[in-house]
């Protein structure tokens, strides 16, 4: 009983971190043990177990086959905090802004070949739709994952996706100024909805977006769909661009790929953390096998459309496989 015990004494840190040997980092102080609704499996919200979203969370969070771990113990290996994220990304965006500025000054776009200018509104600028689906899917993770430490990672990933959307929107407008009749700013939605190059990613992402189980959502997005998209739309498009005399694309993509690596770092850590319960690895492998064919078809459809890039699909697919193999998932 509380009243029979000694009065509680002040501690050096939060009580939930006080028992540990290490001094907590700033990351741990501001990121851990915050998701109160993940604790109560029967009634995640104070309103009771039967409101629509209570049922949703019971089914898709607590009912997930990915289970059996104290998810609040998960840690982001990068220990990224909000203020560190903005320092990091402000630096990256200053770099991107410099690229935009210098290339514009040099009238870079005017020097692109006609064939490549015709390719960009088909294969580059429509990617804002693709990355927007990543933005949306990452936001689903923010609300459905079972701990505040996973939620943080997803929050920054969602913002990274908006960063990719923004770069493409910017370039769309800039290219449109020089090539007003090439479809920049007008042809993208049609391309996303009808062009065979995009239908693989569109189908993949529409389906990922409705994979509502939190574990499946994480696996489908972070281990399969997003890696497939990043390899095809960042790496392989950039490689093609360099051969077509467009080096700017690759410079932007390299900066975006740093965000990709951060996503893979925490995704890897989360798989390892979940996998400490072996049943979880079986579940994750099952999802990977289920989603991979769709992602491979998406890579294929997109990369086949890249001019003069016969190896693109194979290279992108191998990179995705390599990532999964590094996790012992393929």
């Amino acid at each position: 009983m509380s009243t029979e015990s000694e009065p509680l004494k002040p501690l050096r840190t939060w009580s939930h971190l006080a028992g540990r040997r290490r001094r907590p980092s700033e990351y741990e102080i501001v990121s851990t043990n915050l998701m109160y609704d993940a604790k109560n499996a029967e009634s995640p919200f104070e309103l009771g177990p039967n409101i629509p979203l209570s049922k949703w969370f019971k089914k898709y969070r607590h009912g997930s086959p990915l289970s059996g771990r104290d998810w609040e113990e998960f840690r982001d290996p990068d220990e990224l905090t909000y203020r560190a994220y903005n320092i990091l990304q402000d630096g990256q965006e200053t770099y991107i802004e410099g690229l935009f500025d210098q290339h514009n000054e040099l009238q870079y776009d005017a020097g692109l070949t006609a064939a490549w200018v015709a390719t960009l509104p088909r294969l580059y600028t429509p990617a804002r739709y693709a990355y927007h689906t990543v933005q949306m899917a990452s936001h689903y993770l923010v609300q459905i994952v079972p701990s505040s430490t996973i939620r943080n990672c997803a929050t920054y990933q969602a913002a990274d996706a908006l960063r990719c959307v923004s770069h493409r929107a910017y370039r769309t407008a800039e290219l449109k100024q020089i090539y007003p009749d090439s479809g920049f700013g007008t042809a993208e939605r049609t391309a996303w909805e009808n062009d065979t190059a995009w239908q693989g990613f569109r189908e993949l992402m529409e389906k990922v977006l409705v994979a509502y189980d939190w574990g499946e959502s994480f696996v489908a997005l972070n281990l399969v769909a997003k890696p497939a998209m990043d390899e095809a739309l960042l790496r392989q498009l950039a490689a093609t661009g360099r051969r077509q005399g467009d080096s700017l694309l690759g410079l932007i993509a390299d900066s975006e790929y740093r965000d990709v690596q951060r996503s893979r770092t925490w995704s890897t850590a989360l798989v390892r953390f979940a996998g400490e319960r072996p049943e979880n690895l079986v579940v994750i492998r099952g999802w990977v096998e289920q989603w991979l064919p769709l992602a491979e078809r998406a890579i294929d459809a997109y990369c086949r459309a890249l001019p003069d890039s016969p190896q693109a699909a194979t290279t992108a697919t191998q990179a995705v496989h390599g990532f999964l193999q590094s996790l012992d998932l393929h």
Partner: protein
Amino acid sequence: MALLDRADWYDIARDTNWTPKYVTEDALFPEEQSGTLGLPLEVWESYDEPYKVTYREYVRTQREKDAGVYSVKAALQRANFLDQAEPGWVSILKLHYGAFATLEAMASSAESRMARFGKAGGLRNMATFGSLDENRHGQIQLYFPHEHVHRSRQFDWATKSMHTNEWAVVAARHLFDDIMAGRDAVGVALMLTFAFETGFSNLQFLGLAADAAQAGDISFSNLASSIQTDEARHAQIGGPAVKILIANGKKAEAQRLVDIAIWRAWTLFATVTGPSMDYYTPLDRREKSFKEFMQEWVFGQFERTLLDIGLERPWYWDTMLADLDTRHHGMHAGIWTFHKSVWWDVPPGISRAERAWLEEKYPGWEETWGAHFWDPIIARFLKDGPVDTVLPSMVQLCNMAQVPITGTPGWTPGKTGRPLQDFPLEHEGRLYHFGSEVDRWIFQQDPDRYKDHLSVADRMVAGMIQPPTLEGLLDYFSLQEGEWGEDALGHSWLEEYRQEQVQAA
């Protein structure tokens, strides 16, 4: 120009709606998450957020904001302001962090619900920044109080509170689960951002910043004003959504959601901000009374916002204005009486000088709250010595607000205030109690949403709190000695009344 202006490309970045093909629109935007009342994607494409910001601008501005707030904190840390701060201000800080830090982090999930399930590209982008903002507010409001954990175990409640069933926490969770964590995207837009943030919290952070500056807490003042600048931006997410609902024949639904949220926000403010402003803040630091603040800033401004956007004043507006004379006085009296049930030390705030101020701001306070609540306690304390909290067995909790049902003690017709009154409702064989007709009305708007919840009082009756004693209840609240609230002045305020007694004799 070597760089494009924002206006040259902003619209492209939010032009992201597409027609789903491999799944249905309803599967992609299920009603329980989306809440769009059947309005399809095309209708939402006219959504136009008034505050425009790009990713590039966001990360730069936010980096600069954080650099400012964290460097001021670092510079002032060694001054140990809190060691000399007045007890009332320390209580406000403990209350504030415990009540809001974790909820701010939870608000990022609600923003993300809009960013995923909102049907407008502009809304989804703005909510992406909103989600980041709330991630910030959670983190920064944990970083700041962590500095103080060695001072008092009560600061531990910044992370502990929401994991407990402490009564005020249950009330806060019930409210915020209703308007944010447990609401669909449109509900969050209207109830959290439009009603709660535009109407209340945006201004509250302005007020807090001013109060902190008055109290000499520069570090916290900076923090509050910096948070407010984020709030001022993402609070604007809801307005354009209201307009779309009105333009598409859903005004009644929009009005209902907003009406529910405003009343619920009011009851929270009366519980937290009212006592802080009128009883905890040191007398010589008080700028405005809670009533003045609410009348001028909150209700006055928000009324115009509502009408400008095409909504009506909530039907209960006059009831709410009248409640400014009762509710928060009652909440303060209750919290002080049962100060062991909260995680901050509660200043009584009833010295003679403070009472004169209360009478000036709330004419009639002395003949009701003074004569019928505080004087009898003072007389008893002078006679028998101050007694500690006893189990308030007769307190009735509202089944909506989850806080005690209040009334003005000694009220008779003609006096300001209102009588203590329960507004009961029988629903499916269960008797519910409400502190106002508005709370009861909210229940009736969607009984299925609320009917299964048990208030802490219901739990006591149901035998869920064992043993059913003061000790058992405090244990249920996860409060132990060392963290539960005491009289913030250690009853030293009684001395003034003892002197009076001596002189009278």
